[in-house]
């Protein structure tokens, strides 16, 4: 009786039946592939990554010191504005970051407008802001579109931005959103962190290499891993069915 009791002690790592041994072996194999496939790859992704700045960040870095010191030329200010637009046109920018950057950027846009045209420029901003906030019923309203395009064309002309570019289309909204105050130290001090946050990314050969149009790492995670999971499950069932026949095991339930 004693021996019989001991023989029923069961553990994954010390299987007592042939089926259990098979289960242990296949489980260890498949779980290893599974774990390496998921976690191994992402650890590798983490190891090889390097903070990689966008071109806009490099351009911004080249002028920011001069802008902070107040020694920037109009060309430097245009470079900064272009970099700021690269951030503000992104998919998701935190509200606080957006407000600070819009304000700082707008100050430089205003600065670039010749004194003789400043009044006209402010009128265009005010007109668009009024239409947008007070009387807009449909985005296709002629008045709304005209004031928007007029402001975009006017501002992009001074900034050297093509009028049909994504950046040009952002300008009316940024200018009308911002409070356009005098130079604001608080907003300005936030700029370096904001630019670094949105313009530096974790990249490596795994993210730069393309496969079927995807960045490789994205394809690997969004497409390949799911194929791997289905494959592992199929393999397990197939091998289990074969082994049950080989071991002459009939599953009653």
């Amino acid at each position, binding site marked *: 009786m004693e021996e019989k009791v001991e023989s*029923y*002690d*069961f*553990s*994954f790592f010390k*299987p007592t*039946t042939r089926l*259990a041994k098979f289960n242990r072996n*296949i489980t260890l194999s*498949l*779980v290893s592939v*599974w774990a390496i496939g*998921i*976690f191994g790859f*992402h650890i590798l*992704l*983490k190891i090889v990554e390097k903070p990689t700045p966008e071109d*806009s960040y490099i351009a911004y870095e080249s002028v920011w010191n001069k802008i902070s010191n107040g020694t920037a030329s109009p060309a430097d200010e245009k470079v900064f504005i272009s970099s700021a637009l*690269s951030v503000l*046109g*992104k*998919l*998701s*920018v935190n509200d606080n970051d957006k407000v600070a950057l819009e304000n700082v950027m707008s100050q430089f846009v205003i600065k670039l407008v010749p004194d003789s045209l400043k009044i006209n420029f402010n009128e265009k901003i005010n007109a668009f802001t009024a239409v947008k906030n007070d009387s807009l019923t449909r*985005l296709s309203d002629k008045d709304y579109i005209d004031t928007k395009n007029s402001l975009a064309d006017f501002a992009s002309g001074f900034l050297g931005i093509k009028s*049909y*570019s*994504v950046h040009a*289309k952002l300008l009316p*909204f940024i200018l009308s959103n911002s409070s356009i105050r005098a130079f604001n130290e608080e907003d300005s001090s936030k700029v370096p962190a904001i630019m*670094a*946050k*949105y313009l*530096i*990314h*974790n*990249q490596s050969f795994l*993210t730069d290499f*393309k496969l*079927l*149009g*995807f*960045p490789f*790492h*994205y394809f690997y*995670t*969004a*497409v390949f*891993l*799911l194929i791997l*999971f*289905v494959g*592992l*499950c*199929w393999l*397990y*069932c197939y091998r*289990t069915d074969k082994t049950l026949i080989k071991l002459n*095991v009939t599953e009653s*339930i």
Partner: protein
Amino acid sequence: MKKIILTALLLAPVFAFAAGNVQLEGNFKVGPAIILICILVLFVMVGIVFRAKDTTDFYAAGRSISRVGSGMAIASNWMSAASFLGMAALMYGTGYHGLAYVIGWTGGYVLLLILMAGQIRKYGKYTAADFIGDRFYSQKLRVVGAIVAILISIAYCVGQFGGIGLMFKWILGIDYNLAVLIGGTVVLSYTLISGMLGVTKNMQIQYIIIIISFLIPLFILTYKFDYFWLLPQIGYGALVSDIVTGIPAPEIQNMVNSFGHDFALTASPEYAMPWDPASGQTFFQFMAIAFSLMIGTAGLPHVIQRFYVVPKSSDARWSVVWGLFFICILYWSAPVYSTFGAVLSSHYEVGKLAKDAIVVYTAQLGDVNPLIVGFLAAGGVSAAFSTVSGLLVAGASAFSHDIYVKVLRPESSPKQQLRMARYGTIFMAIIVAALALFNFALIAQLVAVAFSLAGCTIFPLFLLGIWWSGSNRSGAIAGLIAGGSVALISIAYFIAGYFNLTWPAHEFISYWLGAWYFAWFGAPLAIIVNIVVSKMTEPTPFEIKKFLVENVHS
């Protein structure tokens, strides 16, 4: 009755003649509303035709479902509002980080299959608590297991009710709270009428509706915006790369969204790059979420319960393969919505959108026919319904079978048992609806809480219960306390944060034991505690060991 169902199905498109105007939110949308009503009527009628006649039917569908059928039911049961709406929402908001949910919710099936599916079927119990009570020879543990199963079901359902509310709000143009209450009432009614058998049949129909409604807009979007449309799940890869490099505005406008904005975007590598600073998410959070969701998958009572409804354990295994394949069809597709949504909604004029509805908004912004968008929204409701009904049955089973029958009233008749199951369902639905009104977080995040809870509590018990005969009652209790404590701390801190309360070490706990991923710590802790305490206490009874070896592993 079957003819009536068929007729209703065929006539649905005829009635859905009036398409609403393209508006992202607000007004009552006639076409989508009619489609939704037709689908709901269809579900209820299927539920009536295949309604549960006794307790075996109610709990386990008479164990008469085929492998492919069970696979479809697994997929439908699984593909909730979190999958249908929530995943795209997360990827839309956090880019690559959202893929942690995609791999977490699929990779867990590998563990579930290899470690549990066949063995659970061989063990031959109806519910998770049934297994826990028998394996650890403890009525108290059975009750605790049942309570945990109910809590998991409630946590899971809250996100689903949120999804139902959002879609009802979008279609009917009503207030979110009212939408939650109406949607909750409908899903409750049909679960009560049908029970598990009707639910399982419904799930097969629901799967087909869900997957078709989800895929059709993808073909249209990829075709319309000139990507490889024959296989959108691959075709959108070029769009991901385009987002990274930026899409310039064309000099001559040709591709536009429904507002007339160019299909153009500033370079946005943060959408595709891993744990990008702009997403606010870290490498640790990515890994912790993926791991927690995986082990949570293998511990969810309503998923485990699916394996009781197949005739044999080999069917249980193959149904996982089929189920996972059916699930992956949707999971390969969800990122397509977030990727198109990112470009189509990038213009300032679109404004801030409710992330959880981005799937529907993307189709609208892509100027997809309003009836197809309505069908998509109805698919979202269907996804939430299929999961909620399965969860309510699992929760009701835990209440009536594991607490009422096994502990409180063992002599109760089958009729009384069925009545208690129905009372349990109503009670759960009321609690869930009340919690859903708080709108705590994104749908997928709310659902992830349920996964972490399952990963900390049920998963360690099943893993050790099946694979180590040395795991005994004392070990199980200790492990459950350890895992449960981690869950309690994390959830308590999350709720405190929601109500703007700051507790000691709040930032530390919120980061390392976040509500959506605390199982990365809680599950290993519960396993270790279970092993240590089991080693130190009285061994497992001989009968249990014998049963494990002879019935489960031989």
